[in-house]
């Protein structure tokens, strides 16, 4: 057995909830890493995975205290180090890559200056040596123009590049242990795979050990040797990656596996697009977006949509997929009236909708509802749930106070929340519960169409799965149509009847889910498809050739 680089024994961390009250948030967690291996910490938010990874650097976030256990790196007892010794040891022996590289770089300094800061202030290298080291790391991380990229400022490179540059910053002192905290979560799917590949190669070449923190099992499976499954600060399961993925012994692990962002095994059963009902006898589509061109700036100077046409049907879901900058959110905004269009029109039940909210009738506004991505900023923190849900009822239906109360109970029940939640504030709810309220607010208007803008993207996989299930049930019952906007093809594949693939403001492929997902694919669709990981540990190594071809084709 190889020597253990890092050993964590019975680690306990507690948070100060009130004065003099400690609530344990990590309970007796033990694991170890051998040199050159990667351990993944996986769990929902609040499972303590970031707290543990920070404790490995001897750090507890403000309000938290490490209350017990030990962390041993090589021969150093990390938790016994004094303040100055810890400072010396961080950045050189252990380094950290945070989730949002954009928030971690100083926008006012060039990139290389920040990358080489650690060895310079610690007097480990001369400036020239550090520069050379940085450039060689840029080479290894497959960054474009490795000689020149360091002279740019953080806003001049893409998100995926910045994340890799941050890895270069972490690796510049050749740390023994690298901690990666959700390093790809904020990235687009296609970029995520590239960054993941770069990280994997770097770790392999440098023979560094790493802790990889994530909530997505499909991503973790690609890089980890061992996986530690966490829930509420307790170890659920710990073992080699192969074993966790193929023969999980715990129910919670199985739940994580079924919620992972992978393509569904079987194609969803196609539903006829048109439901014959009394109101819908003519069988025309509910919503038609007809050749819409729109953009930002004065007079639509910067176009975000180029003659886009899609249709949504009663009781059906259209999935809009694309990466950031593809115009998918703009499309949602144009449909909802938040943005005007330059050309083309949006028709609801055959009647053109006005360009702006002010010129739409209340009935039209009611028919098209918008569900926002981030429920925590889409709900007014100073309003109780009662007010958040009650306002649309009063606004659209002029209901009396008594009727409103009754209806709120019903709606809360629809989204599977207890009625006493009406008295709570959004901050007193969990992320998943808030997203349900967000959906419930759209439902109060009894709309014909709901635009769901990335509503599951900010959620943990298991919670997201539950929201998707709720969406499907509501659709069965209420015959509401969804425009489901997402960057994640695996999510879209689970909910959509038709799919529109968007890129740079244009629709590159549009058709039923089955058509889109069965070959032959459009070049870009192929690239997206090849970016959705399989739940296999060797998947990342096998796709390189397929992706390289797809990337070249898509770029051309």
């Amino acid at each position: 057995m190889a020597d253990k680089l890092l050993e964590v024994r019975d680690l306990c961390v507690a948070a100060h909830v009130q004065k003099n009250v400690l609530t344990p948030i990590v309970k007796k967690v033990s694991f170890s890493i051998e040199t050159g291996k990667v351990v993944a910490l996986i769990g929902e938010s609040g499972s303590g995975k970031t707290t543990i990874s920070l404790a490995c650097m001897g750090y507890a976030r403000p309000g938290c205290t490490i209350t017990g256990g030990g962390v041993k790196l090589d021969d150093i007892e990390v938790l016994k180090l004094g303040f100055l010794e810890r400072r010396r040891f961080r950045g050189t022996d252990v380094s950290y890559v945070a989730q949002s590289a954009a928030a971690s770089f100083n926008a006012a300094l060039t990139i290389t200056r920040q990358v080489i800061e650690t060895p310079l202030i610690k007097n480990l290298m001369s400036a020239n040596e550090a520069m050379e080291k940085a450039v060689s790391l840029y080479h290894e991380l497959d960054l474009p123009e490795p000689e020149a990229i360091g002279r740019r400022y953080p806003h001049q490179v893409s998100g995926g590049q910045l994340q890799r540059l941050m890895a270069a910053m972490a690796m510049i002192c050749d740390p023994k242990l690298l901690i990666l905290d959700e390093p790809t979560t904020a990235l687009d799917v296609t970029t995520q795979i590239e960054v993941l590949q770069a990280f994997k190669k770097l770790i392999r070449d440098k023979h560094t050990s790493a802790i990889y923190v994530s909530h997505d099992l499909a991503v973790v499976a690609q890089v980890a040797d061992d996986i530690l499954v966490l829930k509420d600060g307790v170890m659920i399961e710990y073992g080699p990656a192969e074993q966790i993925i193929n023969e999980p012994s715990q129910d919670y692990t199985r739940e994580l596996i079924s919620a992972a962002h992978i393509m569904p095994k079987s194609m969803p059963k196609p539903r006829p697009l048109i439901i014959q009902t009394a109101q819908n006898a003519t069988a025309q589509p509910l919503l038609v977006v007809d050749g819409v061109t729109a953009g930002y700036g004065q007079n639509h100077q910067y176009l975000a949509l180029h003659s886009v046409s899609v249709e949504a049907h009663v009781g059906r879901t259209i999935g809009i997929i694309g990466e950031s900058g593809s115009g998918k959110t703009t499309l949602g905004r144009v449909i909802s009236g938040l943005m005007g269009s330059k050309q083309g029109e949006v028709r609801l039940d055959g009647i053109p909708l006005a360009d702006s909210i002010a010129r739409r009738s209340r009935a039209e506004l009611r028919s098209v509802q918008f569900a926002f991505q981030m429920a925590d900023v889409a709900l007014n923190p100073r309003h109780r749930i009662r007010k958040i849900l009650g306002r649309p009822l009063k606004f659209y239906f002029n209901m009396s106070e008594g009727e409103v109360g009754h209806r709120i109970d019903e709606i809360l029940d629809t989204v599977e929340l207890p009625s006493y939640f009406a008295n709570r504030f959004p901050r007193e709810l969990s992320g998943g519960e808030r997203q349900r309220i967000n959906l419930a607010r759209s439902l109060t208007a009894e709309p014909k169409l709901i635009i769901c803008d990335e509503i599951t993207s900010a959620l943990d996989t298991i919670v997201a799965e539950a929201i998707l299930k709720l969406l499907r049930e509501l659709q069965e019952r209420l015959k509401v149509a969804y425009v489901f906007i997402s960057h994640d093809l695996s999510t879209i594949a689970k909910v959509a009847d038709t799919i529109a693939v968007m890129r740079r403001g244009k629709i590159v492929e549009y058709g039923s889910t089955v058509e889109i997902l069965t070959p032959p694919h459009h070049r870009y669709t192929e690239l997206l498809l090849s970016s959705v990981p399989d739940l296999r540990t060797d998947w990342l190594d096998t796709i390189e050739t397929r992706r390289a071809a797809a990337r070249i084709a898509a770029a051309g």
Partner: protein
Amino acid sequence: MTVPVAELRSLLRELLSELTPTVVICALILACVILVVLFAPLIAPYGEGEILTNDSFALQGSEGKARPGSTLLLGGDFLGRDILSRLVYGARVTLSVALAISLLAFLLGTTVGFLAAAIRGRADAVLSRIVDALISFPSIMIALIVVTSLGSTFTVLIITVALIDATRVFRVARALAMNIIVQDYIEAARVRGEGLGWVMWQEVLPNVLGPLAAEFGIRFTYAILFISALSFLGLGVQPPHSDLGLMVKENIQALLYASAYDDLRYALICISPALCIATVTISVNLIVDWFLKSTGASLPEEL
């Protein structure tokens, strides 16, 4: 609209749990000041303009010769009026004028500031530039010019200073509202079809009340200082009304007495109104600091 009693109660409990001795003392001082201001005629031993002695600057505790049996607890002013009584009435005038100024400034500043934040575009640019221009003048100079030309009545004073203060409130309110208006819940209200009134009062205002309350405290202290300064320069509250700043001006000669007779008790006659100003403003400021700290609110930095 229902009153959020439970929420208020929990906020109050939270605030009370973080009380510090300093804050308790400041709060007690302010409570006393408020009582004095409200019941000035009952508390003041003598009338506002009543002359108790023919001497200028009678010492503390001396007897008022013009009115047998009277005692000048804190001494007499240059006309032989009771300093304590003048202080009580002066505080009443200064604080109520300051309060009127702050209220008016807030009404105006927040309304226009919110509007600017909501409408954006050209209207906001024009309003902001006007405010920038106004702020670039020394405020005391504007006040002096306006008051000299229009006459120093309470109405003119209050409206002038309130307008000057409103420019600052405008900036704060606009900056605070700007941060809220870009939030998704505002967009959610707009996409529902809500009007500007609802968005401003129901969606934005509750989220900026904390910092605005703190700003109100700070503005209030500035108004006290400003009014006092104007009165000291002779352009604020006019005699025979009493005012804390005016009292400092009137009795500044007492400082000469203090050096001539080498007796600091004379100096106290002039300094006591200044001490009152300092006590009130420092108390309000400390309470505001504590409020900001314990509610976790903060005022916009760029101002």
